[in-house]
């Protein structure tokens, strides 16, 4: 077993461009779930909107990047309104069901053969990431490494860019949540009726929270697709949202650094399990009836699912969290 590779790969997985994008995506989800108590299970839909609304106008219509980014903002807000208006007055699980349904509608739409001319079908769209390459201070194809794990200059750049955006957005969210506006969100999370009794328009505040968290999620989706240089429907499967729930619960809900801590811990374990099993399989350390050729890559999802269930039951405040900030017992 190549332990150096296993550890360096786990470290790389926990800080690479993918982790940064997922972390940004989780920061948005934390605004919904952690601060406002909105159970948004369709964050992957926001991410898909972010990626495709940026990619399509650039390839198909030659828009400049800032116009495409503007379209991302418009589409993301529109999605928040479509999701929020029918459901925010209803009980929490309605929002959960509707958001997951909406995210699936978007995924079916972008992977449908009927819209291949626009979305590229299951192959997705490529060739819109020139903007990111142009800004890259490193050379796209240069090799870099962490221990035994190598990666190219484009990944390094997307990693640095991703974590920078995460840092800026996290500070913004932190400041926002200390403001009177943020305190209203938390009061809604703690006791919606009390907030309403104090004259706050609860639905309006929830909608604003949905929009802000959704925008951050869309930005995360954009980075998620950009770091692979392609927007494909497979990136935005419901699993992405479920994994992010695990991430924000590990890091502690309703804390600005929660998503960052959660991402690093989660993806370290994720990368560790994956590389360990891939090494063990390749070296025939595991019995054939159990592990065939590549099914070990499913184990990390099994771990993520069990971790999600176990955390909610045994440690809902997360690893470093504060029990007072955990939100699941509101209703």
């Amino acid at each position, binding site marked *: 077993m190549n332990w150096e590779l296993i550890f360096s790969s786990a470290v790389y997985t926990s800080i690479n461009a993918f982790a940064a994008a997922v972390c940004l995506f989780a920061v948005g989800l934390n605004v919904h779930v952690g601060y406002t108590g909105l*159970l948004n*299970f369709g964050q992957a839909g926001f991410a898909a909107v972010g990626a495709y609304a940026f990619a399509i106008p650039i390839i198909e219509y030659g828009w400049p990047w800032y116009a495409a980014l503007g379209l991302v903002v418009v589409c993301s807000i529109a999605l928040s309104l*479509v999701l929020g*208006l*029918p*459901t925010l*007055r*209803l*009980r*929490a*699980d*309605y929002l*959960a*069901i*509707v958001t*997951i*349904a*909406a995210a*699936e*509608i978007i995924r*079916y*739409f972008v*992977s*449908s*053969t*009927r819209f291949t001319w626009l979305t590229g*079908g*299951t*192959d997705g769209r490529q060739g819109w990431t020139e903007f990111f390459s142009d800004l890259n201070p490193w050379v796209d194809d240069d090799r870099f490494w962490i221990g035994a794990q190598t990666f190219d200059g484009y990944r390094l750049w997307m990693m640095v860019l991703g974590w920078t955006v995460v840092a800026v957005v996290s500070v913004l969210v932190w400041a926002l949540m200390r403001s009177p506006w943020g305190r209203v969100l938390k009061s809604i999370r703690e006791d919606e009726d009390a907030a309403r009794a104090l004259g706050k328009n609860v639905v309006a505040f929830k909608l604003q929270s949905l929009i802000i968290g959704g925008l951050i999620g869309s930005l995360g989706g954009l980075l998620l697709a950009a770091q692979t240089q392609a927007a494909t429907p497979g990136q935005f499967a*419901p*699993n992405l949202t*479920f994994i992010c*729930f*695990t991430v924000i619960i590990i890091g502690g809900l309703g804390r600005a650094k929660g998503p960052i801590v959660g991402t690093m811990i989660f993806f370290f374990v994720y990368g560790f399990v994956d590389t360990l099993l891939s090494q063990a399989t390749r070296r025939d350390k595991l019995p054939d009836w159990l592990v*065939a050729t590549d*099914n070990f890559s*499913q*184990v990390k*999802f*099994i*771990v*993520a*699912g*069990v*971790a*999600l*269930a*176990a955390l*909610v*039951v045994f440690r*809902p405040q997360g690893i470093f969290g504060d029990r007072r900030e955990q939100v*699941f*017992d*509101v*209703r």
Partner: protein
Amino acid sequence: MLAVPIGFLLADFGVAAAQDEDTNQTLGGRVQNEFEEDGEEVREGVADVRIVVETPDGTLIAEGVTDEGGQYSIAVPEAGTYNVRLDTESLPEGITIPEGETEVYEAVNIPANSNTTRVFFLGEDLRQAESKWSQFLPTLANGFKLAMIIAITSVGLSLIFGTTGLSNFAHGEMVTLGALVAWGLNRSWASWSLLPAAIVAIVVTAVVGGLFELGVWRPLRHRGTSLTSMMIVSIGIALAARHLYLFLAGGALEQYSQYTLQPDLIDLGPIEYPPRSLWIICISGAVIIGVALFLLKARFGKAIRAVSDNPELASSSGIDSDRVILLVWILGGALAGLGGVMYGLEYGIRWDMGFTLLLLMFAAITLGGLGNPFGALIGSLVIGMFVELWTFVVPNANDMKNVGALVALIIILLIRPQGILGSKERIG
């Protein structure tokens, strides 16, 4: 499944070949040119057209060329799901693929030991006007069949929601479990006949449902864990279970060994079903009537409805609500297992089939009124029809079937959030 969207008749009959170790599957069909001559409709085969079987990323698997009569037959080395493409450059001059016709059949499932058929149409399209409405009743029949399967599975989900308040996201995985256990006994670990395999599968899902109630949900309820937490726990369990299935059973779309290839349809006047679909509808109908009678007449059934209505009142009138809830989990598990076997028989068995179905089930029970088992039946009927009719209204959108149901779900929540049979107090 004979879903025929507008514009292209998609013949999807499979004919069973002899079962042996070396699989032997072919893709065949015809390339035909259609045009009108002197007011007469003429169909002629087009020779020397190249047909390509390839993977979605474009790797060539097999190819063939049409003969004098426009017929082609290609031996496919391995069963699987491929794209079947007509090479437009090989077409004779002057012949084109008209608007609305396809040059690629995407994601064609070519099962082992079978003969899959795909027909390419060229030239003017002569079928459009008549074919749309002639497909209306068959589409409706397909919708009804799907509705009956959704109904079987969603009644359990609805009962669980009614008695415990939990939106159980792991219910879809229960459906998959039923289908997979039956498949394992029927095809993978053993080669049982499907009927005993299905019965064992139903028993297994019932037991698993009961064990989860005893091992997870009851302790959580007694600890006072909130429903939202429990919902997230169910999502975690579902995520783990789904990938456990993928880990153990692989990612392919599997079929049972019996009843899947039934070319002789039973004629029921305007519509026709293969025998297995008719059986599925009859079994679902009988089970649904049985469950309804049980809920309305039997002591335990009445107790279930009492706990659904008001758990505190039910407890204080001497109903042991823990026992009732355990029964609901067992019943829900059994129904999910049965639904899973039937869904697998119609549409194939796959690790994520339950998750796809889960969203339809949620749409159905929300539509019918959360927590009301009779509402779940009505909701399932509407959703099943909606899924199939969507392909009728929107052509060439087979891969977007479920979108119709999910859009319906969102619209219903806008107009009537309590659903068709729901009561207002449950929603706020």
